[in-house]
């Protein structure tokens, strides 16, 4: 029995519920799982296909004890949820797993076909039995992650000046190089593909407003349910605005998007602005005051005051 399974079983004895993963997704990749008994927990796994941020389920479980298996990035969401009083810190038992990286499973399947067999021993990644270049299929957030445990002790330094092997990183660079007008065109082209499934919102641990989300209010009518570029653009502006100072850069919005809209370009940009302005990062300190819920009379002297 793996160490993870026995840890989950121990936590289960106290909480009666643990959120984790089993290898029951398509092609044997991880799928989210709710374990209630020691027996159920026997199938628990953690590997590089455990991409989901399970903390998205916590607000709806508020009021009961719950265990949760979490990567370092997921743990930041839990901290932020505790800071926002959406989760009661005393009720949550976090089982933190250390990870090398997680995979962009969709990118692999786009290339090798849906359900292609993914095998990963932590250093060598194989798809349908063939070794493939790992860095190309790692989630972009992992390549920047400070908590990433390197697969090889020395890591693999990327020579400076070379093009990123990862398509998503390349897109980030391309976006930075665009003029402001090119960016508007870029977004409109992206949003034209939006099917208004709202998966970006549903997958986000910090989007917990549920039935009172302003994306579905009719008075005031911020945006309708129409499937068109203009409404999709407004929807994303709402999302970005409502996540100001709260987004922990977990990457779930973009990962959940079925049409591959690179939503993280905006979240990253905003997180960077907030870090510059307030020296603040969400999901670090459960006692911190969110920068947009407070102010500084003497500081913040923008616009010449």
């Amino acid at each position: 029995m793996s160490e993870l399974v026995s840890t989950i079983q121990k936590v289960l004895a106290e909480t009666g519920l643990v959120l984790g993963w089993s290898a029951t997704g398509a092609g044997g990749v991880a799928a989210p799982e709710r374990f209630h008994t020691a027996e159920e927990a026997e199938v628990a796994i953690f590997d590089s296909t455990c991409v989901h941020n399970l903390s998205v389920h916590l607000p709806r479980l508020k009021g009961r004890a719950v265990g949760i298996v979490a990567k370092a990035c997921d743990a930041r969401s839990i901290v932020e949820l505790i800071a926002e009083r959406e989760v009661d810190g005393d009720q949550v038992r976090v089982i933190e797993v250390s990870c090398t990286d997680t995979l962009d499973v969709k990118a692999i399947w786009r290339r090798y076909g849906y359900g292609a067999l993914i095998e990963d021993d932590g250093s060598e990644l194989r798809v349908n039995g063939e070794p493939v270049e790992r860095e190309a299929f790692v989630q972009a957030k992992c390549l920047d992650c400070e908590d990433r445990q390197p697969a090889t002790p020395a890591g693999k330094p990327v020579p400076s000046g070379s093009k990123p092997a990862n398509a998503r990183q390349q897109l980030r660079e391309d976006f930075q190089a665009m003029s402001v007008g090119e960016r508007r065109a870029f977004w409109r082209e992206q949003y034209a593909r939006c099917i208004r499934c709202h998966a970006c919102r549903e997958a986000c641990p910090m989007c917990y407003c549920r039935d009172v989300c302003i994306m579905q209010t009719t008075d005031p009518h911020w945006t309708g349910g129409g499937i068109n570029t203009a409404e999709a653009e407004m929807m994303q502006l709402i999302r970005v605005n409502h996540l100001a100072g709260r987004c922990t850069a977990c990457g779930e919005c973009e990962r959940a998007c079925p049409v591959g809209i690179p939503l993280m370009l905006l979240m990253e940009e905003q997180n960077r602005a907030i870090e510059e302005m307030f020296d603040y990062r969400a999901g670090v300190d459960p006692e911190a005051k969110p920068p947009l819920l407070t102010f500084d009379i003497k500081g913040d002297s923008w616009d010449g005051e």
Partner: protein
Amino acid sequence: MAGTARMKQPGDLRVIRLPCTGRVNPLLILKAFMEGADGVLVSGCHPGDCHYNVGNYHARRRLELLQRMLPAFGIDPGRFHYTWVSASEGSRWAGVVSDFTRRIEALGKIGAEVPANALAKAEQTAMTDATGKTTS
């Protein structure tokens, strides 16, 4: 004040009165841009002078963040300006609005900055992303 002193105001300026800059949800500004406004100016009472004590302290954080985010959304940051003008500063107000309208006139209609060939280029980027191909 500017009105009673019969100072000139630009004719294409539409004034929307709100009780306090603390009421200015940044989404109001973004929505205005989405509905076709060529520029948005927010003017409030000076920090320290807020009738509601702290409204403008909250506002300046939000407005500054919006200012910094506009380029990422693809909106020229020159189309937005926030400033503090008190009710007694009539001539300052007249100067602020005429400077701002001049600036917006120079920038032209919203979307004027979008290069004609950019849509086609963006389409290509989107395709590359959707197929997951490395663009080396």
